[in-house]
Structures are given as structure tokens and as C-alpha cells.
């Protein structure tokens, strides 16, 4: 069995660092939201609730006892992976943190952030197909190669894997929903549903492959442990992707122009309506609101 050193079981104060950072980020979000609510702009209480929910899910995952469990038990790892890569990012995306950031920053800084969001690197990683490759492709790479075994022996690699889960999960949820934060892409609802479909199939397939062929290998995990973890991945992934699909259709339904024939009978540039407006317009709106 690999040792669990450095993951909180030894009680090192460093293990609490992620929890402290998480608390700080949440406080900053809530403080910024409060400022918007006190000024006349307003900020939805739902978004605050979604951000807090995402933070709580992440806090449950980075709590040192859970991290220690995740380190030596594949089922624990999979539970943490579901929280980190699928459920928490969805909650955070629904909290529209980028819109809040743009509204809270001074004008010059907000313009800088907008330029950054329109830059080529961000545009390319926030496309649904790229996000899909980063997200599900990363999982195939982690579980079907010796990378997972290597990550158990390196604190650095392990931390990086978890950050990748979170970042790729966030990008994927954002690229599929294309909202509530404005997306730099104008992609139709059907296309985004199609990418979600591929993601669900690839995720289910990976769960089956891990169950049937007992991946990840070379880790000392027992057969039953791997199979339980693979089933957790399969059904947990179902739940998370169902929630993402429901969120996507709720957003599309809400932003459907009133006189339109139906959610699916719109053209690409119409679907997603308000949330797909180019960033330039958002910037304009933000500036107007403040003026």
C-alpha cells in the first residue's frame, strides 16, 4: 500500500491550506455580491447560493480526512473526483463569477479582463470540443495509463491532477451552458447538446472499461474496490451530467424569445439568446450600469 504522507493524515498544517483558500474565495464572492446588492445593480441570491454550494462541495472534497481516504482508496478518489470535476464546477458556473468580477472591478481592469477572455488561448480552451478533450480526455489519460499510479507517489502531481479536474470541469460546464457568464462562442443549442452527448457516452464507456479490465493498474487496489469505484464513476457521472443537461435546457428555455416557435426551432445564433451576446456588449452594459 502506498503511504498517505502529506495528505493530512500526519496532521501537517499545509493540509488545511486548500480549505483556507476556499473560504477566502467564497468570502470575496459574497462580499462582491453584497456590494452589488447594496448599490442599485442587484445580484441574484440564487447565484450566491450556487457559489456557496459549490464551495461547500469542494470543501467536503479537500477536507484532510477525505483527502487521506481518497489517497488510499479508489472509491474515495472517485467520490472526490465527482465533487471536484463535475458537481462543484457546475454550481460555480451557475453562480456567474466572471460577470460579478467584471461588475466589481474598476473600468480599466474590467476592460483588461474582457480582453483576456477574448484572447485566443481562452477562446480555444472554452470551446466545447476543446473542453471535452481536456475533461474526458484527461480522465482517459489518468485512469488508463500509469499516470494514476504515479500521482499517488507525488504530492505535486496529485495536487495538479485535482486542479486539472476542477479547471477542466469548470471549462466544460461553462462551454456547454454558454452562460450565465457570456461565452466567447456563439454555438447552437443542438451542437452543445451533441457535445454533451459524446461526453456522457465517453464517461460511461470509461466506467465500463475500468470495471471490466480493472484499470487503473499497478496501484494495489483490490478487484472489488476498483469495480465499486468504476460503478460510482458510471452512476455518479450520470447524475452530474443529467444535472448539467437540465441546467442547459432551463437556461435555453428561460432565454427563449417570447414569440419564438420553440426551443429547438431557433438558429444557432438565436439559441442561448442573451447569454451568448458577444463580450463587447457585456462590457458596454457593465459600463452603462455603473455610469
Amino acid at each position, binding site marked *: 500500500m502506498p503511504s498517505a504522507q502529506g495528505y493530512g493524515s500526519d496532521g501537517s498544517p499545509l493540509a488545511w491550506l486548500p480549505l483556507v483558500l476556499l473560504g477566502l474565495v467564497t468570502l470575496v464572492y459574497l462580499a462582491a455580491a453584497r456590494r452589488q446588492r447594496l448599490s442599485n445593480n442587484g445580484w441574484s441570491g440564487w447565484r450566491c447560493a450556487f457559489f456557496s454550494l459549490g464551495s461547500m462541495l469542494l470543501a467536503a472534497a479537500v477536507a484532510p480526512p477525505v483527502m487521506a481516504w481518497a489517497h488510499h482508496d479508489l472509491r474515495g478518489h472517485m467520490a472526490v473526483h465527482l465533487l471536484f470535476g463535475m458537481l462543484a464546477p457546475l454550481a460555480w458556473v451557475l453562480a456567474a463569477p466572471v460577470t460579478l468580477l467584471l461588475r466589481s472591478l474598476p473600468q480599466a481592469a474590467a476592460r483588461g479582463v474582457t480582453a483576456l477572455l477574448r484572447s485566443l488561448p481562452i477562446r480555444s480552451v472554452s470551446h466545447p470540443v476543446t473542453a471535452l478533450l481536456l475533461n474526458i480526455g484527461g480522465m482517459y489519460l489518468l485512469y488508463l495509463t500509469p499516470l494514476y499510479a504515479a500521482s499517488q507517489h507525488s504530492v505535486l502531481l496529485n495536487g495538479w491532477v485535482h486542479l486539472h479536474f476542477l479547471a477542466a470541469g469548470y471549462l466544460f460546464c461553462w462551454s456547454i451552458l454558454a452562460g450565465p457568464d457570456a461565452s466567447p462562442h456563439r454555438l447552437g443549442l443542438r451542437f452543445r*447538446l451533441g457535445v*454533451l*452527448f*459524446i*461526453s*456522457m*457516452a*465517453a464517461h*460511461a*464507456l470509461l466506467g*465500463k*472499461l475500468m*470495471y*471490466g479490465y480493472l484499470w487503473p493498474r499497478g496501484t494495489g487496489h483490490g478487484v472489488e474496490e476498483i*469495480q465499486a469505484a468504476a*460503478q460510482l464513476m*458510471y452512476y455518479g457521472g*450520470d447524475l452530474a*451530467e*443529467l444535472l448539467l*443537461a*437540465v441546467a442547459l*435546457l432551463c437556461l435555453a*428555455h428561460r432565454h427563449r424569445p417570447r414569440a419564438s416557435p*420553440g*426551443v*429547438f426551432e431557433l438558429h444557432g445564433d438565436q439559441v442561448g439568446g442573451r447569454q451568448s451576446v458577444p463580450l463587447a456588449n457585456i462590457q458596454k452594459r457593465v459600463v452603462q450600469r455603473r455610469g
Partner: protein
Amino acid sequence: MTSSRPSPANAHDARRSLWYAVLVGAGIMAAIDEIVFHQLLQWHHFFDHATPMIGIVSDGLLHAAELLAIVVGTFLLIDLAHRHRLAARWAWAGVFLGMGGFQLVDGIVSHKLLRIHQIRYGVDLLLYDLTWNLCALALLLVGTWLYRRARRLERS
């Protein structure tokens, strides 16, 4: 699904109500299959080593399609209902046709052609397969009856 429209549903609404409900019906049947045979009875195996690779891959695709069908179909029906354009009789026909159609495809393509898993292990399968597919036919018959009824009532 209750909608008694003053004027009979036009052909376009009827067709959409039918097809959206087919999606939901197929999704419901898939969910019943998953809950009853995989989880409660534990007859179906999660993974069968007799499955060829193409079977495992198509199973993943089918699984994703089922999940999306139920969500997308439900939203489309809600959307129709909001606009008072849901033709309930056609929708009920669609639900049964979807359930029966899925059951039949599952019984013949998934179990027999792709061999993703069998209904039960360690027993003579013939009786199980016959029952499974006859149930599918019964659901399809109910769906067909509802379909003909919807068409007849619309003409009168």
C-alpha cells in the same frame, strides 16, 4: 399531460407531441430497465466479458442517448404544454410506442446481436427472452391502439 384544446391539434403539433413523447417513453423504459434489472433484481451484469468491443462502445452511446432523451423529451413536452399546443392523445401514444420500441431494440439488438449482457445468468434464456420481447410487443400494441384512436378522434 392534460390538454383539451378547443380546436383539434393541427398536424404539426400532433406529430411533435407524438415524437417528443416517444423520446420520453424510450428514456422511461431505459430507466426502468436500469433500476429493476440492474439494481433491484441484479439479474443484468454491469459488464459481460462475452461482449465484443463494438458492443461496449455502442452501449455507452445508447446509455447517453437514453439519458438525454428523457431530459430533452420532457423539456420539449413542457415547452409544448406552455404554449397550449400539446396534443395529449398523441403524446400518450408516443409514450407507449417509445417504451415498446426501446424494449424491443434492447431485447433483440442489445441482448442478442451486440450481447452487451443477458437478462439473467445461469438459467435457460429462451423463456426470459420470449417474455421480454412479448412484453415489448404488448407495449407496442397498446401504443398502436392509442395512435389509431388519436387519429380517429381527430378526424371525427
